[in-house]
């Protein structure tokens, strides 16, 4: 039995070969490793966008005054809104209920009169709160349009704001001056796609061995647990790194996301991320023996946390505290952050080192658990 504990290059090579053949033989695997990531990347790049553009909004102008008409025109002119005008709000309210309009801007009956009297003129913004994110955007942008219109009005009228404002804000967006959401979503999406390949594919492959009973054949062979795990995973590791490169090339050359870091850093981060991704897949398949269960677990412990808890779309610091703690064990969190830095900022090794250390630590724990689980079944 002592030989089972030792690493043997020939045995390792044999299992790597077997596994590689198995991958290449089933074309659906290659489809999943190379075509699916690119398709998903495109979907994320185009379908997931936080850039507000042409949101359908109704503008109700309740009086015939000149100022009301001008303000209405200001709403029509902005590219943020796709406006629809009416004189009576009852005309447009059903459209908000049906979800066809995201909100209403109401310029009330006495708007012009109030401006002339010099009392504060009121403007009403009603949003469809059923979609809270969009509602927030509509409120903010509507406010912005109205305020910009108002200050241009005052400038025209020659009302100089007593020497102008005292404090001026000089904002600067680093790394992504045009603030295109694609620039940060695409690097994040690479992490999501990699989670899918690393965790899902591994979980399914090993679960299938159990389900089909071929695991018994491996148990009967003289192979050791270490050799088995390494041999089983090496081809997937290579496949995963290949997919990372394919995704990065697509991001840079097709989707136009700048790539300011080095390929070496990309490979280092990719390799570090594959440790927990493959480890999780292995643990799932060792703990279940059934492909359906494995796929569901991979979905809920790998894919969804990567999508929701990684900071890819939703700000981690704004989540409830317990969820923030939870994000520390979500491997994708570190990968998303570092990929965004790699693409938009460049090589920041102080950050990468932290990420790589965290990824390897999480991966180590997952592998230890997976090895324990597998050994229990093997012996």
């Amino acid at each position, binding site marked *: 039995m002592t030989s089972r504990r030792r690493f043997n290059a020939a045995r390792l090579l044999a299992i790597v070969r077997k596994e590689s053949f198995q991958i290449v033989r089933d074309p*659906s695997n290659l489809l999943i490793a190379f075509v*699916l990531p690119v*398709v998903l990347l495109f*979907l994320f790049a185009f*379908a997931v*966008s*936080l850039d507000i*553009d042409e*949101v359908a909004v109704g503008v109700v102008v309740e009086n015939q005054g000149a100022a009301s008409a001008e303000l209405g025109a200001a709403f029509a002119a902005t590219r943020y809104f796709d406006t629809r005008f009416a004189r009576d709000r009852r005309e447009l309210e*059903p459209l*908000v*209920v*049906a979800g066809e309009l*995201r909100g209403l801007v109401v310029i009330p009956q006495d708007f012009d009169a109030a401006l002339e009297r010099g009392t*504060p*003129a*009121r403007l*009403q*913004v*009603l*949003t469809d*709160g*059923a979609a*809270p*994110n969009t*509602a*927030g955007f509509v409120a903010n942008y509507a*406010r912005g349009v*109205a*305020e910009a219109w108002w200050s241009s009005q005052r400038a025209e009228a020659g009302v100089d704001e007593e020497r102008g404002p*005292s*404090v*001026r*804000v*000089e*904002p*600067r*967006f*680093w*790394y992504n001056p045009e603030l295109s*959401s694609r620039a*940060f979503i695409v690097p994040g999406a690479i992490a999501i796609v990699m989670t899918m390949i690393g965790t*899902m594919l591994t979980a*399914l492959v090993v679960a*299938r061995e159990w389900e089909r009973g071929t695991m018994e054949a491996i148990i009967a062979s003289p192979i050791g647990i270490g050799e088995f795990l390494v041999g089983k995973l090496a081809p997937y590791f290579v496949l995963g790194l290949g997919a990372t490169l394919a995704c990065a090339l697509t991001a840079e050359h097709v989707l136009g996301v700048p790539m300011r870091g080095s390929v070496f850093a990309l490979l280092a981060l990719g390799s570090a991320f594959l440790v927990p991704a493959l480890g999780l897949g292995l643990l799932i398949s060792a703990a279940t023996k*059934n*492909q359906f*269960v494995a796929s*569901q677990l991979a*979905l*809920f412990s790998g894919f*969804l946390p990567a999508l929701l808890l990684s900071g890819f*779309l*939703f*700000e981690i*610091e*704004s989540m409830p505290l317990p969820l923030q703690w939870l994000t520390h064990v979500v491997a994708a969190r570190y990968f998303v952050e570092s990929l965004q830095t790699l693409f938009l*900022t460049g090589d*920041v090794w102080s*950050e990468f080192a932290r990420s790589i250390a965290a990824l390897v630590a999480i991966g180590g724990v997952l592998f230890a658990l997976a090895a324990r689980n597998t050994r229990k079944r093997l012996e």
Partner: protein
Amino acid sequence: MRFQRLVAQIRKEILSVLRDPRTRAVLIGPPLLQLFVFAFAATLEVENVSLAVLDLDGGKWSHELVQRVRATRMAGDVLVVESHDALAEAVDARRVLAAMAFQPDFSRRIEAGLPADVQIVLDGRRGNSAQIALGYLQSIVAELNADLAVLRGGRPPRTIAIDVRHWFNPNLEYLWFTVPSLVGILSMFSALIITALSIARERELGTFEQLLVSPASPLEIIAGKCIPAVVIGTVLGSVMLAAGIFLYRIPFTGSVLLLYAALVVFILSVVGVGLMISSISRTQQQAILGAFSAGVPLVLLSGFATPVENMPPVLQALAQADPLKHFLVIVQGSFLKALPPDVVLETLVPILLIAAVTLTAALFFVRGRLE
């Protein structure tokens, strides 16, 4: 179609899904996890973010502005840095979302009545949050300006008053959006995976031949595979519905009956997709990954993560063929908007059409396999 044979088929299908205790656990556990964990993550609000301050001024007014920023919900930890390099390092390493830098003459210029600049550096890698944070900072500065104007004996600059009111969800509770949406997303994924596996499992295990020699007709076989998915999907959807109403106390203002009718039609439209995947998959692994490859785009195009209007026109057109997009309108509307029956029925039409197309296509696909 013989009723008895159909019932036997359905029993067998349901048993094959629910027989294994781990499978049962996986059908029940993850949705609960989804409900109690992930539902809280989906917010685009910006709160408690870390900021950095480089105060080369150290005077009264820079201090005042920093205090006002600290007092907001948006600000979390405030990191005080001593140099531009340290500021750049903090932003580079993602320790802060935004940084404010004051020049040495900031307070002096304000006292002298001259315009003073505050430089705000924002992390474009977190572009969305950065933009929202900038909005907060700008409104704080605007308030300070108004106060300064008063202090100098002037009148505050005249403004127009903007009343914002959020209908249906006055406090913009994100859970009121995510939990109703999960009714659709969860029942979709479970129905999709259950049907995608149904035929693929039989083929992988070799029991497909037995099905072929059984007296069941193709239509019966398909119905036998559809109905369990509809039942399980509806039950899961109901659990989320109940959790939304009784646990999270989200107002439910629409018609339960119409919602269930829509849910069943919606699941049927998904079942058609699942059956097609199943009939072209040779293994369960292919079926699962196929279901996943269909499910993720359906969620992304539904407008759940980001609004459909933000997408390019081609994808917007494609989104019209996404049953989840239409179902989300119905389920969100039934919770919050007291969606009138005529609007529900109008929205149901595209789902019905999609269901008719996918089920007919599935019938052809499966029949092709059977013959």
